[in-house]
């Protein structure tokens, strides 16, 4: 099979996956407590009003009809209306998504930049002090609750030392967000040439980004170390060494072979974090997707809940697909 056909096959496979996700979400949401019509109409509404809202929402129809209608709407990008913010869920999500993406993208770039060199270094010098320290860090970081680290760092760096701004939102309250282009405040402020906003956005990003990077670099580091050590044992490395190539060239050969699993690990973490940074978002009042999800869940805002679950799941699926396609592009051994 050629690469092109493989890509097409994978894209086609996404359809049943997304259908499955949508189906599960639909039936899960039906189980939420409370009558949505009653919650929209308010507690003072008469029976007639509630009945008319039910009709409006299509809740009086058989469940299979509702299911078909739901599928049809989702296919057209309509995730329904949130009764908490009383705007379209799709709009709410699009508005909040960049905040989360900016946070986790920066965090994972940072994590990758910490984990890969450290993993390489430890694999090249096994048994040294640095190797032990790095292994201990990899083990510890993976076991640490990220929300606890966030609180701890807020206590030290904001509470005691005042080197970071208060953990509330993405900008100083006095500043106006830059005109939206990408939704990333750092990028948008550069485009707008608004330096005070840029520095403020960066300062607010610093602590949550560092917390996430610090915790999630752990598993990536472990992966980098183990694949790199394995690569260094490979025949091609021994041959390169025997041929008298200098150490850094040999290390580069090994790295090229060890890189892919590390990229996969980073990709999987990225897909996880889109819905997994909830606690960090909550602590820093980030106003992203995670916080929206918490709000929606605690107030039984069922259209919003299903919207968020659907969006984050699709995002994860796309990230995993992208990782597989990177494999295809980078690894010459893989031919589908």
């Amino acid at each position, binding site marked *: 099979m050629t690469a092109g056909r493989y890509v097409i096959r994978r894209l086609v496979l996404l359809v049943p996956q997304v259908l499955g996700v949508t189906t599960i979400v639909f039936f899960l949401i039906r189980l939420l407590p409370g009558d949505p019509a009653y919650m929209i109409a308010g507690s003072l509404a008469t029976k007639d009003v509630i009945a008319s809202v039910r009709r409006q929402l299509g809740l009086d129809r058989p469940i299979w009809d509702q299911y078909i209608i739901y599928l049809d709407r989702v296919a057209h990008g309509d995730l329904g209306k949130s009764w908490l913010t009383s705007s379209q869920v799709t709009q709410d999500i699009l508005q909040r998504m960049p905040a989360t993406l900016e946070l986790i993208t920066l965090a994972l770039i940072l994590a990758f930049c910490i984990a890969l060199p450290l993993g390489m270094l430890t694999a090249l010098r096994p048994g040294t002090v640095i190797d032990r320290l790095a292994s201990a860090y990899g083990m*510890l970081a993976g076991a640490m*609750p990220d929300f606890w680290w966030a609180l701890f760092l807020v*206590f030290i760096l904001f509470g005691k030392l005042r080197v970071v701004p208060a953990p509330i939102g993405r900008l100083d309250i006095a500043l106006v967000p830059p005109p939206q282009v990408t939704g990333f405040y750092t990028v948008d402020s550069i485009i707008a040439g608004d330096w005070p906003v840029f520095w403020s956005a960066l300062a607010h990003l610093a602590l949550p980004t560092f917390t996430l990077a610090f915790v999630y670099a752990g598993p990536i580091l472990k992966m980098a170390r183990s694949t790199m050590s394995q690569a260094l044992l490979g025949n091609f490395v021994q041959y390169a060494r025997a041929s008298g190539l200098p150490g850094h060239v040999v290390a580069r050969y090994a790295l090229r072979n060890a890189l892919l699993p590390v990229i996969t690990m980073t990709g999987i973490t990225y897909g996880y974090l889109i819905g997994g940074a*909830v606690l960090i978002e909550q602590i820093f009042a980030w106003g992203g997707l995670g916080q929206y999800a918490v709000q929606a*869940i*605690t107030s039984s805002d069922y259209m919003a*809940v299903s919207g968020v679950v659907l969006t984050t799941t699709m995002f994860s699926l796309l990230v995993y697909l992208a990782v597989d396609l990177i494999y295809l592009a980078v690894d010459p051994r893989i031919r589908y």
Partner: protein
Amino acid sequence: MILDRRQLRHLIRTRPSVLVGAAIVGVTLILAAIGPSIAPFDPRTAIPGEQLKSPGFVHLMGTDDNGMDVFSRVIASPQTDLTIAILGTFGAIAAGIPLGLVAGYYRGFVSELLMRLSDIVQSFPVFILGMALVVVTGQEIRNVVYVVAVVNCPIYVRLIRGQVLFLRERPFIEAARAIGGRDSWIIREHILANAIGPVMANASVTIGWAILLTAGLSFIGAGVRVPTPEWGSMIAVGAKNVYTGEWWPSVFPGLALAFTVLGFALLGEALVHLADRTRR
């Protein structure tokens, strides 16, 4: 998985960290059994007039802003956290084993369906799904257990299936079939007996991870609630005090949580490694 003394000695020599892990797990298990009864104060009751006392001789880890003794609550928490994590993990294994056996032994439509379902469950955002499930079903400990079981189940389906696929083509299975063994007998006596090792080894890793999930859910208010002693909700109770400098109600339960997860991870990693070695 049977460990003989020689293997154990080898494990301890090559991976001394397993001792640390085992010690932490041991202490936590003991606390889970007797923690609430050896606590100096009642972990569920607030002491009037004793809010936010800093750590000292009376209150080893201070008190939180409800006036509850932090130390008593920290050592009473394993009963909650470990119960949820262990029951949830065994739920995941109990469901994962038969599904994994079916998906591995019988190929075809059912197997394909099971694997695609696992894909879907695994691509759900664990945390948001967990939160939604707990809120949907009501905030009871029982429901947190179900959530832990559901989100971890695919891991075991995959693990068992992988083992079965590896075992089913081996000569001894062929031999069992050749002497006229029925499928149910082969699966039970030959495949399951050989596939169970890595599953049990992985349980420790899952338990550690399940403790984190439980604590995270409780932290956000979608899990165990005050006054039940539980590390995650304790951290949440202390969170607002952290900003004003009273660090102890959050920091101590966080440390306990981190050490416990680390313990299970260290032990689990060594066991997985061992299971892998014996297989080869």
